[in-house]
């Protein structure tokens, strides 16, 4: 099982990122999330990354891509690198209503695969 992003449904509202942080440490902040929003603002290019246990998923407007350790994050911008240090998505196994990012997202961007 893994969390999946449908990038073309995303509007960049970022609530999943904050919900994820809340799941991990009970507070509102963008820094402890397994999800990360990245953008090139003037190009209106944006997407979400998910730090998985052994891989990194990029939900990019060009399509989805799963990177393995050591692979370069091309096209995600310099702002993408900090996610490699983040805690991996644990699929919110202890939450009563399933992954909090999926609950919080107004656009149905996130789903489970596998």
């Amino acid at each position: 099982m893994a969390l999946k992003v449908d990038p073309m449904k995303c509007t960049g509202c970022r609530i999943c990122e904050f919900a994820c942080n809340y799941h991990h440490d009970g507070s509102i902040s963008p820094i402890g999330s397994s999800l990360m929003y990245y953008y090139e603002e003037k190009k209106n290019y944006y997407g979400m990354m998910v730090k998985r246990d052994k891989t990194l998923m990029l939900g990019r407007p060009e399509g989805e891509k799963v990177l393995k350790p050591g692979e370069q994050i091309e096209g995600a911008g310099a702002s993408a690198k900090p996610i490699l240090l983040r805690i991996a998505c644990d699929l919110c196994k202890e939450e009563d209503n399933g992954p909090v990012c999926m609950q919080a997202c107004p656009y149905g961007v996130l789903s489970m695969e596998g």
Partner: protein
Amino acid sequence: MTMETMNNYNGTILIVDLAAKSCSTQDLTEELIEKALGGAAINMELYEQYKDREPLILGSGFFTATFAPAACGGVMTAKSPITGKIAHVPFGWLTGVELKLTGFDFVVVLGKAAAPVRLWLHDGLSDINDSADIWGKDVWESTDKMREVYGDDMAQMLVIGKAGENKNPLAVVSENYWGGKDKAGLGAVFGAKNLKAVAMRGLGSLEVADGFFQKCVELKNGIIGGAIKGKAGLYDIGAALGIDAAALDKLKSITHRNDAGYNCAYPYYTFLKYNEAPTFMDMMGGSKEPGCLVSDLMGFASLAAAGVDAARAMETCYRLGLEPAAAGALLKKQGAGIEGLDSLAAGGAAEGLAAWIVNGALDSAIAAKTAAFSMAVPTRAIFGGSLDADGWINRQAMAYVLGIDPVMAVLCPEITGEKMAELVRISAEWDDFSADALHTICAELVKKSA
């Protein structure tokens, strides 16, 4: 409850003395929160406290940056150079959230700097930085330069262009590259203070009450299944409001994607691409500046009515920090093209600023009661519900106090006083806080802002 445990807030007010180039802080007390909750209502309290020192207040709402629906809002309060009265100007998308995450819930900016400066708020720190490097540069160049200087593309900006530097009442405070909801000329207030920008980056942390998240999810689910269901973007709003069909068709033909502000369930920011194919999605290649993000439908319609390429004219207004609805009205009157915008930013009168004209009688009724809220927000219910003048004013006051996006407050009739009061009760652990208490705070805000 001590300040350390007050949910939703950091507990800090920043006081900036521009003449002395010094910053200090004071506690955001529970007493003040009990009296005015947040946003424009606390801004108003601070404005009165410092009213002899030309205050400009930046505030976050009670729910800003939390899980409450559309809680993306910050609000600026100052005396409008257009009306001479108090104006509350909302700033949203990602900028309102960033303010709160800097660690400062409210920022009081006093007096005038001797030379151009900008305020850099980050991680609980505040710097007053010289801004000779960007004074005279347009909004886009300034935003790029500040992000380069501060080394962070995620830094959010409130910034002025040439119009603001010239203290022109047609000036706006821009949210990053894309203008904003400033119809009150607060861009000229920035300019008069020699304040080029407020740059913000916050990696702070806020506490929220147990059970708050789940209540917010329930409310969000009601919103997405409610009046906005099946709708998206500026186009659908414009169609519902009866905006000029040719202007809307043009907008649709160059629409790239619809974007949403923080935690907003309706994406009313529409990105228009005119320097490359609207369908182009790749990170690599393409134009570095393919188009612009538009949320001000009346600004777009006003420029279209002037007979110019409205999307490109929006970009020019953004760069100049110029209010597009008034600019469009003036271009039309002068029979000028896009090139006329530059001279409007240099001079120009405050004509045509009450630009939301889709429902004239209601606009007049609102104007007769208050000029405190942004007329960038449609003055009628759009996809559902109904609003009269008092209903619109109450709904806006509530949004400005709580940090709810004011357009979302009009789009989503599901965001009610009762639901918001319930979220306040949970957050603040005030068992007896009611919708009436919230309404009283909002009514007091309207009265004090007169």
